[in-house]
């Protein structure tokens, strides 16, 4: 399997993402430059975290018009797998590949800390190697991670089990304290209608080795790669 990591001017988790996928046996990783319109026949596209184009205007709003994004949108629309992490999630929302928007954190601060996620749906391409209700520890680091969708969009996504990760406390309960940014319903990660596009604010690629404090992010990445190869 070949994974392509898109680099926008201002991406800063591109190498972490490269490393995280590289650690999985049988996975080849390539960088994709934002100004190119060639996806180099990858099987999966990853939009990494960072501050693409300085996050000017709104996070992800300018990156969404990069030449590579035209190809990424076509790729996703034809069923290709796309993963957006943090800033990459913001780009996916701005592109319309996922519903909703990410607003400024409710406390107006940049939040950088460890969170606990609960796997809400272990029946997706991204989570099939995980257990329903499994708790995963990994960091968040963002200023605009407050997920918002109007009530009808949100209730539709909930009824289709498309909220696949939620912020919870150590006991696995959704609480306001466990939610780092004020996201509606504690949403931390969602998938598209067809299930081929994942957007999440927490950083699985920063939790792949014990020395980093957690290996739980690696579980998500391995779960996905195993299901695909």
């Amino acid at each position, binding site marked *: 399997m070949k994974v392509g990591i898109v680099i926008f001017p201002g991406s800063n988790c591109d190498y972490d993402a490269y490393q995280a996928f590289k650690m999985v046996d049988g996975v080849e990783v390539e960088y994709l430059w934002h100004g190119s319109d060639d996806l180099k026949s990858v099987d999966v596209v990853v939009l990494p975290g960072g501050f693409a184009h300085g996050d000017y205007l709104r996070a992800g*709003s*300018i990156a969404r018009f990069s030449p590579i994004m035209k190809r990424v949108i076509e790729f996703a629309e034809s069923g290709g797998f796309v993963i957006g992490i943090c800033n990459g999630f913001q780009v996916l929302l701005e592109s319309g590949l996922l519903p*909703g*928007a990410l607003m*400024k954190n409710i*406390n*107006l601060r940049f939040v950088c800390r460890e969170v606990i996620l609960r796997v809400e749906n272990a029946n997706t391409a991204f989570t099939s190697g995980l257990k329903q209700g499994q708790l995963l520890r990994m960091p968040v680091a963002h200023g605009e991670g407050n997920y*918002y969708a*109007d009530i009808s969009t949100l209730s539709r996504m909930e009824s289709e089990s498309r909220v696949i990760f939620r912020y919870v406390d150590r006991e696995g309960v959704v609480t306001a304290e466990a939610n780092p940014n004020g996201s509606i319903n504690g949403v931390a990660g969602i998938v598209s209608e067809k299930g081929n596009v994942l957007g999440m604010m927490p950083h699985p690629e920063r939790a792949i080795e014990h020395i980093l404090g957690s290996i739980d992010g690696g579980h998500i990445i391995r779960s996905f790669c195993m299901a695909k190869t």
Partner: protein
Amino acid sequence: MKFQAKVNVSLKEGVLDPQGQTIGNALLDLGFENILKVKTGKIFTLEIEAETESDATRAASEAASRLLANPVIEQFKVEVVL
């Protein structure tokens, strides 16, 4: 002809505006008891070369709906002057 367009982007009704609330609270602390609510937004000033005012308005509205505003959470108003 050159026109100037002002695009005013603000959060839709019902979308939480923590910045506006924080500023509102600060104004209250300063004694502005008659200021009941603050909403934040952005103003973009565009210089547009167009034949007519309605062409300029169309260009500004398209720019606003495609890039300047995020229709999921924001609304916009366009005002064109010569």
